[in-house]
């Protein structure tokens, strides 16, 4: 088996071409509005990516069924980020250069969004993402104000933690953060908000993942005698830390983000260990009609409840909000005209609507306010959603929501 360099090159080109062909052959109808669905189908985001992609398709179908937006049908080009910046950049380049998409929706991890946003900025098209990193709100990443965040920032989570800690009457908080942008974002947000209230953080630790033991880290925290430990952590490390903490015999309270303090954690550790833990979540819009519509679509596409994939709900909202903005901007509007209408269709002071069809009709009579499936979906000046938060307490193995926190 001897391949010359030329043959190898040729076969590579051929194969790549063959892969592209079916997509290129899709009706690249000049009138359609082309959208790139760039999701973490494989890699760490794999559990969510497929659902996100399918919900983008489903929402686009709903828009097209309602006669399109701004006189145009939506056409979706789906790609996988592999939850890796390098692969995501290649995919984004393909979407922008080959498919000529006019918006990219659904990047998930902060690393990927940070890598892709320079490309969308340069192409002058919007990027809708659900990443937590605060850096995505401000220049250079968001200098063109084309980036929209459908998930609360980690910093905002941190502020919610501080509000809850204050409300619960804690005096001596300590923090533990997983060493990544999201984990540190949470605890730094907390520390900033807490010290702004005049409080003091008695100890803080940033730890590396994948350790056989977190005893030394815990010891440092516990030595400061905190009354509550606030974490920016994930499920695996939270499991290990709580297990070791319980076995030290200390009685401390915990405030943990809901993606870590969830039923899985209760199952892994048993009710005795997790008793009294405060789990903090941004409030999704579970009771809303928009959520019901999304949930039905999710059931149909995946066969599971839409509750299990909050990012898929965000992806659903991304398409709907984009289509509403297109409708508001009118036929033939370009990306910047559409971008200018984003807050007009999503933020308050308008008729509350919960689907594209409803909104399209209401737009004829003036301003609308889309209330989404993932949250009520209001954007601040940075293009970030500003959801409220809920504090849930784990009691007897049940996670019960007790009150809301408005920031």
């Amino acid at each position, binding site marked *: 088996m001897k391949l010359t360099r030329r043959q190898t090159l040729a076969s590579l080109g051929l194969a790549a071409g063959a892969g592209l062909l079916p997509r290129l052959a899709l009706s690249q109808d000049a009138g359609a509005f082309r959208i790139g669905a760039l999701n973490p189908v494989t890699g760490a985001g794999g559990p969510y990516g497929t659902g996100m992609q399918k919900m983008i398709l489903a929402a686009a179908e709903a828009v097209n069924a309602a006669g399109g937006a701004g006189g145009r049908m939506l056409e979706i080009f789906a790609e996988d980020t592999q939850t890796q910046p390098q692969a995501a950049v290649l995919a984004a380049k393909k979407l922008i250069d080959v498919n000529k998409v006019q918006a990219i929706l659904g990047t998930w991890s902060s690393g990927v969004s940070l890598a892709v946003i320079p490309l969308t900025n340069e192409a002058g098209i919007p990027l809708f993402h659900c990443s937590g990193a605060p850096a995505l709100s401000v220049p250079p990443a968001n200098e063109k104000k084309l980036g929209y965040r459908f998930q609360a920032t980690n910093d905002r989570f941190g502020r919610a933690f501080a509000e809850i800690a204050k409300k619960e009457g804690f005096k001596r908080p300590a923090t533990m953060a997983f060493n990544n942008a999201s984990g540190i974002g949470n605890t730094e947000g907390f520390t900033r908000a807490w010290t702004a209230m005049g409080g003091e953080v008695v100890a803080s630790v940033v*730890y590396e993942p994948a350790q056989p033991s977190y*005893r030394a880290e815990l010891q440092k925290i516990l030595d400061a005698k905190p009354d509550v430990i606030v974490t920016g952590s994930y499920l695996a490390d939270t499991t290990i830390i709580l297990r070791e903490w319980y*076995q030290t015999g200390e009685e401390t309270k915990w405030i943990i983000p809901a993606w870590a303090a969830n039923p899985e954690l209760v199952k892994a550790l*048993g009710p005795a260990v997790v008793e009294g833990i405060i789990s903090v979540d941004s409030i999704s819009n579970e009771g809303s009609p928009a959520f019901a519509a999304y949930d039905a679509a999710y059931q149909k596409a995946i066969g599971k409840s839409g509750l299990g994939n909050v990012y898929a709900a965000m992806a659903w909202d991304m398409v709907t909000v984009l289509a509403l903005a297109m409708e508001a901007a009118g036929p033939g509007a370009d990306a910047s005209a559409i971008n200018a209408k984003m807050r007009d269709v999503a933020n308050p002071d308008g008729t509350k609507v919960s689907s594209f069809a409803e909104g399209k009709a209401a737009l004829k009579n003036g301003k609308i306010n889309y209330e989404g499936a993932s949250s009520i979906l209001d954007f601040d000046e940075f293009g970030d959603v500003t959801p409220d938060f809920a504090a849930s307490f784990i009691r007897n193995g049940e996670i019960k929501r007790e009150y809301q926190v408005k920031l």
Partner: protein
Amino acid sequence: MTSFVELLLSGITSGLIIGLAGLSVTLVFGIARFSNAATGDTMTLGAYGALMGTSLTGSLLAGGLIGLAAGALSAILAYVLVFRPLQNRSPISSLLASIGVAFFIRAVLGVVFGHDQMVFQMDLVRPFRLHGVRIQPNDLKFAGVAILTLALVFVVLHLTPIGRRMRAVADNPLLARVSGIAPRPVMFTLWAIAGAVAAVAGILLGMKTVVSPESGWDMLLPAFAAAVLGGIGHPVGAVLAGVIIGVAQELATPFVGFTYKIAISFLVLLLVLLVRPRGLFGKIEGVR
């Protein structure tokens, strides 16, 4: 002071796990003569085996034995399919192939079990105090299992005919072949033991932490460091070195910063190679 002692105890427990992994590395190195990068993922495999076994039989002990068997079996398979065909080639071939084996095991585990964490359902108990020092019963159990495993391995190595033959091969493979010690049963025993020991390390790690397809690979560097520090090919050395590394990690990180925890084992590795390339207990070694 009590907190120092507590950290020390905790370090010894994690150190024993590192030491077990290092023992597996060092056994393979002593007899099969290459650094087995698949050790970490054999650990993971053992942990998953034990998880499956526990949920099938409902007993942690039976599950652990199943995990142990899974580790041994996979190591023997790797030997028969990969390392035996390579045994007359340079150790580098085996090392490279062992990385392939590592990736392959991890990929299979990822496909079969997914990437969500899994945990051993264990009773968590509050510690008791001895002169003010908190002693965690589970730590004692882990240490007990680790020490029992070590004892068994040393019994096999020193008190059984096959163990004596293994040590003979380790001392001089050429001589052993000439003098008629058939290497084949020796090799099978070696891989069974190496796989089982790695599996025990993986199971203990899984009980202490959580099980995910990546968890074993992260232990590879500490395991190698333990093997080198102990004097590669030297079982007792590997275990003691593992304990030293475990203790060093727990005690030193509050000073150097927690994010540099993994770097400690690398530092130990470098220092040993610089100062005493033979390791703490190294015998004659082709030092160049």
